[in-house]
């Protein structure tokens, strides 16, 4: 009875983790957006946040579900309950939230029109700022016109400072172009205060950026599947939830619990990498060879399901469910 009770609390814990993570991830993203666009007037900034909120929610939603599922694995193996229910309930809850919650979100959320951003959001008057490999200084910003523009080029033998006078700014997609004084400079459209989040390039930051990019790809792919057909969307959700949950087998793979936790995280990270690799690399090549792009399109999900099934079999056949208890009893 205690085993069933322990298993029953898992969906509740999952929901708690999911809500906390959802709020945290979305909240931080909104905060970052607010800081980056601090140069905009408050109404514009609020309208911008409102317009980006649905997209942000949809992007962070799968990450919140998958992370919450991973966090649920900790109490699951700490106090193992009934094995059947311990597997079924959290996995079921995660699938329901990811599939139907995502569906509901997509149905309910409608993004208001994004406000038109002016040059003022990208340039700070009377402050030096990095702009496409150069440093820019300007006296004043008035809509798309910049006054008193000075450019500092990269170190060179000749003069580095150049006075451009009046400049005209054009925003085109992800790029900002500045023309003035016979010169044209182009840089990525980065809000003026986004520089506060710029940090030195190092391997750890690259790993984190790769992790975030893979999670964003998963969210995008779910959106694509949703627009294509509901069954394919449910299939993707199932593959993700099943594979992540069964990776929990690594929580009991060896006698050393901390190493197990690390291995489990590595495997989950590997799933995301595999998903990207199959989707962006292998699937396209296979589609060309096999000539069945629709079927090959499901390759990432199929691979995740297959790996999940193997891990589940290993779990059921070779590993004791309450390894910790057995170790303690043995000790």
């Amino acid at each position: 009875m205690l085993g069933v009770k322990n298993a029953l609390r898992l969906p509740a814990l999952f929901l708690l983790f999911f809500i906390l993570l959802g709020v945290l991830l979305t909240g931080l993203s909104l905060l970052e957006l607010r800081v980056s666009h601090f140069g905009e007037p408050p109404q514009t900034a609020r309208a911008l946040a409102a317009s980006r909120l649905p997209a942000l929610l949809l992007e962070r939603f799968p990450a919140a579900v998958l992370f919450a599922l991973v966090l649920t694995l900790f109490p699951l193996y700490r106090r193992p309950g009934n094995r059947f229910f311990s597997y079924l309930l959290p996995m079921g809850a995660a699938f329901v939230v990811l599939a139907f919650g995502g569906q509901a979100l997509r149905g309910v959320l409608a993004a208001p029109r994004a406000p038109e951003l002016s040059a003022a959001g990208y340039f700070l008057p009377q402050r030096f700022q990095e702009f496409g490999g150069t440093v820019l200084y300007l006296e004043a910003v008035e809509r798309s016109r910049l006054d008193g523009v000075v450019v500092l080029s990269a170190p060179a033998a000749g003069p580095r400072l150049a006075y451009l006078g009046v400049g005209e700014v054009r925003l085109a997609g992800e790029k900002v172009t500045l023309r003035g004084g016979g010169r044209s400079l182009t840089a990525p459209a980065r809000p003026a205060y986004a520089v506060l989040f710029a940090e030195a390039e190092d391997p750890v930051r690259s790993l984190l950026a790769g992790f975030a990019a893979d999670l964003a790809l998963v969210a995008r792919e779910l959106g694509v599947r949703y627009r294509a057909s509901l069954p394919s969307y449910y299939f993707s959700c199932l593959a993700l939830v099943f594979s992540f949950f069964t990776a929990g087998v690594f929580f009991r793979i060896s006698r050393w619990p901390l190493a197990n936790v690390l291995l489990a995280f590595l495997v989950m990270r590997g799933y995301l990498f595999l998903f990207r690799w199959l989707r962006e690399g292998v699937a396209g090549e296979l589609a060309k060879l096999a000539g069945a792009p629709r079927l090959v399109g499901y390759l990432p999900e199929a691979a995740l399901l297959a790996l999940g099934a193997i891990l589940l079999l290993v779990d059921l056949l070779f590993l004791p469910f309450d390894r910790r208890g057995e170790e303690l009893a043995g000790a």
Partner: protein
Amino acid sequence: MRSPGARGALSTLFVFYLLAFAAFLLWSILALPDLFPVFRWPYLWTAAFVHFVDYAIPVTAAGLAVAYSLFLRAGSGDRRPFHRLVGSQLTLLVVLAILYTVFLLGFYPRSRTLLTELEDLTRHGRSLLEAARQDSRQGRQQAALDAYERYLGINRRDATVSGERDELLQAMHAAPPAVAGKEEPPAPEPAEGQQPHELLAIAKAYFLKEDWFSANYFATLAEQVSGDRRDAVSREAARLAARAWGEISSRDPNKMELAERRLFQDKKRGYELYQREDYLAAYYHFLQLARGYPGDGDAKRYLDLSRKQVLRVTYFLDEAERMDPLPGPQGLLFVNARADGKREIVSIGKMVATAGETFFKDLEVLRFDAGRVLLHSQAPYGKLDVSETPAAAQGQAPGARAGILLHGIDRLRRERESVPRVLAGSDRREEPRYLLTLAPRPGELAALRAPGPSGRTRLGSVGLDTLWLARGGIGAFGQMESALSLEILMRLLLPFAFLNLGLLAMALGWSYRLASSRRPPAAAYLVIPLFPLAAALLTGVYLKVHRTLAAFALLAWGFNPALIGLAVLEGAILAVMLIVLAGRGAE
């Protein structure tokens, strides 16, 4: 430590540090840039140290987690509550956090500066060598020799180039040039701090000894020191100066010996230059004279006096060039506020401060107003002048405290000098000297870095004290206050992150420790190198979240509330971590 488990934990942490440093050294070797051989090992050790401080938090967290999960088992020590078991190690963690803070705030900024500096010096040295060889080929022997000397000042162990320099010297049939530093230091100014009547007494004594030059000098000085007072001393000093000058003028050179006549005429000419305040001409004149007549006291005294005057308006180029190999802040950029409303942007390649003197390299000034360039000029070197600046006369903001002398002269040769090169506009100056008056205080300059794609890289080499000093008014110099303030907040946060994540790692390690006394299989140990990586990712997320919160607090409420908020947050996290740690059972 009290238990074998605790000893094992400590040893593990030590091994983690050792291996991490070795890994960082290897990383530095693999990523070693193109450097002079003499710089390679200093660069490698410094780069390994910088990486070590960069990753000290994850390495410590990983070491603690592994140590606690592997070695600190309930069965290994006596059965005591966990908090008592780890009490001494908590102290160790606090000590480590203090050491980390010292490294981070004390040695780290200088080490980062040194890394950039060694790379720049190699580039600069190579260009000097190229210039030296080119000058040598084209027969400009003196210029070639100068460039060789400067190159060897950077890469002193280059035997090949040293040989090339010696060959050049032989070709020039000259001994190695007298190094400027070997010249005698200026004699102390005899009149400094003395009263007019004392100066007058000295002048009278010289007058009696028929040393007319000295008598005239001291009498003139007494008159000058008296200022506007027209008292008896001042009037007598004026009379004595006139009489001494009369004696100088009335002397008939024809009655003197040839050598004496030449010396007298030369001294008189130099003295006239000095009296006309043409100090630069007087300096070179007396320099020649002192060389020709080493025993002549007048020549020596007036050489010292004119040098002192010259150094009020210029600097010696060799001194500036000697600063090339020394480390200092690079890429300075600021708006130099002017009271007349005109904008002036100053770019400085490098600043080197030694005891008492500060030199600048690669200066560029762009002054503009109402859509047109008023002045655009470049100067290879400059020297900080902290003497009183006639601020109002130069259109500068009141209270300007320092300036940069842009006129460089050769210590020995008049032909060589460096003045700002005007690229556009006009070089109309309200005063005779080439002086760039500075709006920022000298202590603030190091923080005024040109922005780059990465704020951390840019400000990482600036000390916390400089950042703190500059933070208040940095906006007036065109810098983004929030970027600088955020850097301060994040730097203050790091020691707390060290402590908090260390405590979290202890708690995690203990929670996921070995359940039995049996060791894990050997294969499990293979994952140990992955722990620092995982800890680095965790640290990255922790710091990213803090950066976002701190940036928002900073922009929304300002620096002080953000600082207080961050301190409260870190205190709360620390308390939670301690509670979590204390709550771990010993079973």
